[in-house]
């Protein structure tokens, strides 16, 4: 088992390196961050010294190599804009994003898992069609449009919920206040999670319901409900675990847009402003972090698989 985990980690390293190379290549294709500084009040000499300070006067591969070496020493570099260390910048914004992603994922699965199972158990009945249609609707609403609708009804019309930030300005932001701010953005993300997964869980459960051992259980005279509860659902855990792993990159992507819509002070906001301001070290930091998270969640899925399904051996 540990050997397997170690092997997986070692396999992930070249993938990670590859991702950083692609990132760096795309960014340098784009143009220099110095372009953003050019203006009537900035002298040539100032630009040149900035370039030298940031190492931008060197060829791209040297720049990348320097970045990589610094990374191995635990240094992600400094933001071009705020001069803050990138690690610190990410560290101070990752909390809200994790909170938002975690709550949305739990909420989304709380909708998707029961709905998917319900739909599979009542296959080809009216309620099955209703659930499947709802899941199609969920995955067809653009996140930003759903955000607009929610803001319109819950904030503007009914005045129930705040529409931006993580806590009311001026207050310290107690738990209740944060929860009130969290509701709308997490609904938007959860709807996306639910939409994609209801059908996935439905078909996973359907596949299990057709297995021989379930037919045997039925033939033994066990009641339908007991069969489903005791045999089918336990085996449906496996695909559900996979779903959680697959969700993470999508959720992160969704979070970037949703944070923008609700001014949620997380990594998504940092990313957007870094992207528009060509703040390379910050972009590289976020890309690296997200790649690590994605690879780690893949690994975690594999491990959970082994835990949930005792027949898998390494």
């Amino acid at each position, binding site marked *: 088992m540990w050997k397997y985990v170690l092997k997986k980690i070692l396999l992930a390293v070249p993938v990670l390196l590859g991702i950083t190379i692609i990132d760096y290549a795309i960014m340098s294709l*784009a143009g220099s961050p110095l372009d953003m500084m050019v203006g009537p009040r900035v002298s040539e000499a100032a630009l040149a010294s900035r370039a030298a300070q940031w190492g931008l006067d060197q060829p791209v591969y040297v720049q990348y190599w320097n970045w990589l070496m610094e990374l191995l020493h635990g240094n992600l570099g400094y933001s071009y804009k705020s001069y803050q260390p990138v690690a610190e910048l990410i560290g101070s914004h990752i909390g809200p994003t994790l909170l938002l992603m975690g709550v949305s994922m739990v909420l989304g699965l709380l909708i998707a898992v029961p709905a998917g199972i319900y739909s599979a158990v009542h296959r080809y009945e009216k309620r099955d069609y209703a659930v499947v249609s709802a899941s199609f609707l969920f995955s067809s609403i*653009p996140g*930003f*449009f759903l955000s607009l609708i929610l803001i319109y009804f819950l904030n503007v019309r009914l005045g129930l919920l705040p529409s931006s930030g993580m806590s009311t300005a001026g207050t310290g932001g107690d738990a209740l206040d944060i929860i009130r701010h969290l509701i709308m953005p997490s609904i938007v993300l959860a709807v996306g999670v639910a939409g994609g997964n209801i059908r996935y869980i439905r078909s996973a459960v359907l596949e299990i319901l057709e297995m021989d051992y379930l037919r045997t259980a039925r033939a033994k005279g066990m009641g339908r409900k007991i069969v489903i509860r005791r045999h089918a659902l336990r085996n449906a855990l496996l695909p559900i675990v996979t779903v959680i792993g697959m969700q993470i*990159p999508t959720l992160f*992507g969704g979070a970037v*847009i949703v944070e923008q819509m609700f001014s949620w002070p997380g990594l998504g906001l940092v990313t957007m402003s870094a*992207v528009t301001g060509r703040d390379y070290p910050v972009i590289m930091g976020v890309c690296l972090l997200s790649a690590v998270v*994605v690879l780690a969640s893949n690994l975690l899925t594999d491990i959970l698989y082994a835990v949930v399904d005792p027949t898998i051996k390494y």
Partner: protein
Amino acid sequence: MKHKTHFGMIARRFMKHKMAVICLVLLVILIVLALLAPVIAPYSPTKPSGKFSSPPSSEHILGTDKIGRDMYSRILYATQVSLEVGFLATLISTVVGVVLGLISGYFGGAVDKAIMSFTDMVMSFPYILLVLVAAAIFQPGKWSIILILGFVDWPGVARLVRGNVLSLRETNFVKSDITSGMPRRYILFSEILPNTIAPVLVYATSVFALSILDEAALSYLGMGVQPPTPSLGNLLNGAESLSVLTGKPWLWVPAGAVIILLVMCINFVGDALRDALDPRNE
């Protein structure tokens, strides 16, 4: 003749999905309306034709925007642009994915390893991050968004095709081709490719739906299709302001509704197509 009955069988299975049939009809109507935009649009999509921000009336059935452009005409053209972006992005990613998947699956070995690890890299990238970085870097606009989405969506197709090729290679008809010394080109393009078209087609519908959603999100954020060219995403751009959101629903509700309708119809049709093309569904 055999082909005809095969097609007939698929059509018959597809027709069983009532929602999908309705959606297909709606989709065709939307596509025709969008394509005929230059003919049926009552006004120019880019030139003012009425009062500023006037609500729906008999002259402007969906009202006008803040500089007096007819919203109905703008939505027609926007649908055309969004469909075009979605379609071309899907076409690019499907072609790239099919080619890489074919090569990877058929040749195996080092080529396969190299292609698949590249695929893994692109896949373990938070998709929107790649798109955002690329969109910020290249001049935003219709063509760059098409290329970006096209080159981000292919890994799923590549994996699908590779898996199919691997299993097809073990079938007797391909094995007999190999032993009888058929040229590689023939085996790849005349034997293997036609047999992977069905799943690729189904997958492509979901890529199409996703591309339309992504285009909308990016254009909404100002990183996609640039005004004055209308797209379903950038039409919604103005809704960020509170006065538009609360007082001028005609400026944002119809465009959003068209996105949902388009994407939902494509998803339903794709789902029914999956069922209809699945050989296990006898």
